[in-house]
């Protein structure tokens, strides 16, 4: 479970162009559920995702990860919860690497290297043996039926295939939480539905999924458990719609 307590994120603080992307947000995200952050662009969805995903630190407020089996010998281990806001970057990274898998709007695959290498990339700095994560990457590619593209460069793939490579990459370190930022923005409707099917499978596999999207195919999908409506950096409504 992820607990956000009065999270605020502002940029350029102290300068005339200061603006607050996320304003005093408190939220509980339940494990093994699909949570969708819904709202127009500029509503603070992405900023909130970066803070949940340990990519950025909030200007104020606290984020707790409860009951997440962290690989770290935690020093502040109180009943399995971890307060991540005050951690230096290097620790955030370790947590991020093993806990979160990311799927980006632009897919963010690296050109010029093969599909397989792209999928393995997040595992490189973990110090795991190459043979181990290579096996996992091949399994993932098979699972998403793109195994035959493993040796190809990513430039040659279609949009749907790219999407699946990006998902496979998010899963390589076996994270418990998947974070997706506008995952369907560059997909047509058919592929968007396909994506939601995969999300369904991941949910069945016990992953916690957090998606930021303003695509109705995503937020109206029946498998969404919690819908959080955001506007101007604040939560307008939040709850179990169905």
């Amino acid at each position, binding site marked *: 479970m992820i607990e956000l307590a009065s999270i605020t994120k502002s940029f350029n603080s102290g300068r005339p162009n200061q603006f607050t992307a996320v304003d005093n947000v408190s939220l509980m995200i339940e494990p093994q559920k699909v949570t969708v952050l819904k709202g127009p662009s500029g509503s603070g969805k992405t900023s909130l995702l970066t803070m949940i995903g340990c990519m950025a630190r909030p200007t104020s407020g606290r984020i707790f990860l409860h009951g997440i089996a962290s690989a770290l010998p935690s*020093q502040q281990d109180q009943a399995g919860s971890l307060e991540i806001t*005050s*951690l230096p970057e290097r620790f955030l990274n370790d947590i991020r690497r093993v806990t979160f898998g990311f799927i980006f709007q632009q897919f963010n695959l690296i050109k010029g290297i093969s599909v397989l290498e792209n999928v393995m990339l997040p595992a490189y700095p973990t110090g795991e043996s190459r043979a181990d994560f290579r096996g996992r990457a091949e399994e993932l590619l098979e699972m998403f039926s793109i195994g035959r593209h493993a040796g190809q460069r990513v430039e040659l793939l279609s949009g749907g295939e790219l999407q699946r490579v990006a998902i496979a990459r998010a899963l390589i370190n076996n994270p418990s939480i998947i974070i997706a930022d506008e995952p369907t923005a560059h997909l047509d409707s058919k592929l968007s539905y396909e994506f939601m099917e995969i999300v369904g499978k991941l949910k069945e596999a016990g992953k916690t999924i957090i998606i930021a999207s303003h695509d109705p195919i995503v937020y109206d999908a029946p498998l969404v458990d919690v819908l959080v409506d955001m506007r101007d950096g604040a939560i307008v409504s939040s709850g179990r719609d169905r």
Partner: protein
Amino acid sequence: MILHPAALALLTTALLVSGLGAYSCFHGMRILGKWDLSSGSELQLELERRTYLISTVMSYILAFQLMLLFLYIYTADSLHPLFTGAMCAAGSLNANSFGYPVLILKIVNFLLSGVWLIVNHTDNKAYDYPLIRVKYELLNLLIPLLVLESILMFAYFAGIKPDIITSCCGSLFSYESGGFSGEIASLPHIPMKIAFYVSMSLTLASGLFFYLKGRSGGLFSISATVAFLVAAASLVSFICLYFYELPTHHCPFCLLQKEYGHVGYLLYATLLGGGVAGLGVGVLMPFKKLGSMARIIPPVQRRLALAAMICYLLFVLISSWKMLFSALRMG
């Protein structure tokens, strides 16, 4: 002034190291002044990023310092034909009054950079930067010494005039001459040997005790430091004699040469490594009880103690082996 390619290499590197050091020092001061871990402000984030830069810079400086130390001795050695009577590095370094101070500063700076990296490594293991102030205050002590070293080295090379009559290592380290280095050499062999083996045994015993029980780390660190100094003096006083198989050649530099199988590198590397690790244990002692450090420091110290013991043991084994099998026999 001499324009030797090696001297130019040394001076260029010294300049670069000082520049990097000054840059780190500047940002170190900013970190000391503005550090506020509880803040998530952009300034704090930037400062936290600077710490990566400074650790990277310091690792490079340490690596460069180590290589420079040997390059400096080697260059001094290759310059010796320029001086009448100089027969090796000992004579060249004596060509003006800056040669030896530079060498001593180089050793001190190497030890300090090593200790800094140990403190940095330990600090990075904790969530809350508990040693940040200690670290950057130490940096402010270290960098001026680095800059001073570069200035003195420049003065040394600038002041070299070929043909100055200098005493060669034969007379510099012989019994007759007075002065500091002469005194080391004229330290009597037997008491020196006793001091060497006693300090080494004490270090190894206290190290083993510390490694197993985790107590008396201070004692270990002090005896490791004393052993470092005693071993350095012993090297000049009697150990090198067994390698040269000459009863009067007290030069600590010729050991680095091919004729003696470059054994000097191994001796100096183990001695310096042991010295840094031993000092590191002691420097960490005061922070053992400090919050999050309580769980981090003991394993680091144990590993350092182990490293120091291995280094010293190697040093003792190499020199004792030579003392037993050398053609030279002394009373």
